[in-house]
């Protein structure tokens, strides 16, 4: 385990280095001029020049990259060109929203997958149900997000359609409103945060749920015809017990990998869903950073997303090794 952790940390560092290198390389190819983006469209060339010098953009790319790395070693992600404040501060402000939404949608997606796969296993689906599931899985995220918001918020008024919280002036210790509400003893805040989260989380969770659910269903079908399941049935266990104790755990590996793959796609979907639901998270920040050629911000976000993804992957691997003890870490 220790060896595994060391290995994954070393691996993570390599991946992050490589990623920062790629992003840096790509950004230095961008024709856009961050100095210009900062100075505003109408600034005279002198101002832009001065700005460029101030941002260190005159140096060759590798010098800039070296500077970036040495600062990174001290945990400093640099100063955002757009917001004029440390990228780490920006990210600290935007990350909780994304984290909250991301975790909620992963959890919801996993729950959806579980329910769907088990139901479909117990009650073999007709063509109609299969079609519906494939259909939901085939809906482009921008459409499903918009339709969800249109029907459940605009038409029916059941759920809020935008933002994170209806309450003003609420600030909790973690920035995760759902959790903070409980921590500071304001269940009403938590409830409100939950209501705000349902639609965007659902939009994000649907593709996760469908993909993971399908993979889980396939794995279940395979596992449930294994000899050891027959052994379990031979003990006179009820079908539910067989499914829960013997089926699910053995079927977990492949769907967990699929979950990892879906988390990778989740980052892309966040960009859209945060936009549609006005969710003030990193996705929004990223889009704006791109729009203003805010290299430090883009790099910072890339690093954070990279760390998050590696973390998720590591957790998934650990989960797989818990589900299947033969996989040694």
């Amino acid at each position, binding site marked *: 385990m220790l060896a595994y952790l060391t290995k994954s940390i070393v691996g993570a560092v390599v991946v992050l280095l490589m990623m920062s290198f790629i992003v840096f390389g790509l950004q230095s190819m961008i024709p856009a001029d961050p100095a210009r983006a900062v100075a505003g469209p109408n600034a005279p060339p002198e101002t832009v020049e001065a700005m460029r010098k101030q941002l260190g953009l005159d140096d060759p790319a590798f010098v800039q990259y070296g500077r970036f790395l040495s600062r990174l070693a001290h945990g400093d992600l640099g100063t955002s060109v757009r917001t004029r404040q440390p990228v780490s501060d920006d990210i600290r402000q935007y990350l909780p929203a994304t984290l909250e939404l991301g975790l909620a949608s992963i959890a919801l997606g996993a729950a959806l997958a579980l329910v769907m796969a088990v139901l479909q296993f117990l009650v073999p689906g007709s063509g109609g149900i299969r079609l519906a599931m494939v259909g939901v899985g085939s809906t482009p995220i921008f459409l499903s997000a918009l339709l969800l918001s249109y029907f459940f918020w605009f038409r029916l008024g059941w759920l809020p359609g935008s933002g994170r919280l209806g309450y003003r002036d609420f600030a909790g210790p973690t920035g995760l409103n759902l959790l903070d509400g409980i921590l500071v003893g304001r269940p009403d805040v938590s409830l409100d945060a939950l209501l705000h989260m349902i639609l965007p989380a659902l939009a994000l969770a649907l593709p996760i749920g469908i993909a993971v659910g399908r993979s889980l269903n396939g794995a279940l079908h395979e596992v449930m015809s294994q000899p050891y399941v027959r052994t379990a049935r031979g003990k006179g266990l009820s079908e539910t017990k067989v499914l829960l104790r013997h089926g699910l755990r053995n079927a977990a590996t492949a769907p967990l990998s699929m979950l990892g793959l879906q988390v990778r796609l989740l980052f892309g*979907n966040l960009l859209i869903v945060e936009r549609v639901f006005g969710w003030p998270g990193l996705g929004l920040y990223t*889009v704006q950073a791109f729009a203003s050629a805010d290299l430090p911000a883009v790099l910072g976000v890339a690093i954070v997303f990279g760390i998050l993804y590696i973390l998720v992957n590591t957790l998934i691997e650990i989960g797989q090794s818990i589900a299947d003890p033969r996989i040694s870490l």
Partner: protein
Amino acid sequence: MTGRPGQDTPARPRFNWRDFFRRAGWLESIGIVGVPVVTVLAVLAPWITPFDPQLRVAGAYLPPSAGHWFGTDEIGRDLFSRIILGVRYTWLSGLAVIGFTLIVGSLVGLISGLMGGKVDLVVERIVDLFIVLPSTLIALAFVAAVGPGLVNTMIALAIFWWPWYARISHDEIRRLKARPHVEAARMAGVRGPRLLLRYLLPGVVPALLIGASLDLANVIMTLSLMSFLGLGLPAPAPELGAMTSRTLDSLTVHWWLPILPAAIIFFLCLLANLAGDGIRAALRGA
């Protein structure tokens, strides 16, 4: 006892489309048939549009009618014609991405899997690395760097898609290499390309085919997502994702403008997904 029953296994006929479709399921068979049909339509698209998709042929914002099945768009072009052309771009580029990454990825995987040893180790680490990178972000950075456009978007996607096929083909070839029948073929003196082509490749292809057919919808979805974010084709080219994103604000007034292209994306993904499911069921069953 060996898994296979006794001496009287009835001879199973060789490959047979009816069996194939039966194993795939009727719903999935629609997808399997639909994919080549859509591909043909996509290729023929420029010749089958009822109107010139570039020209203003009627008033703007006409709702669907007998003359214009899908209505007209915000400057009076025939939406149906534009969507047909959009299918061409979206579908063919999806196929191209899949095809390209399939070839590159599986070549890398095959070669490294075959060579084994240090080369394999290094290549596998690189593949791992690519798999762990947050793809959308880097694709965005890539497109931001080289400028939006269909080809660029496709390249950005391909960069992140090939490792999957490298992974699949690598794992399959490693699995096959250790299988007794390959060992037996080696003992029988089969070497080099002959071993690869006759004994290994046919075993790898089904896994790749399953992977690719299930991925087509993913690629189409990601392509339309990128073009939704404004990273797709130059403007007059009717890219389905871009058509939707540009007209999303008219959802409540001119619903057909965003809904119909999105519905077509949905339909394409549905076909691809069904085909993928079907091919998986049919090949796994075999």
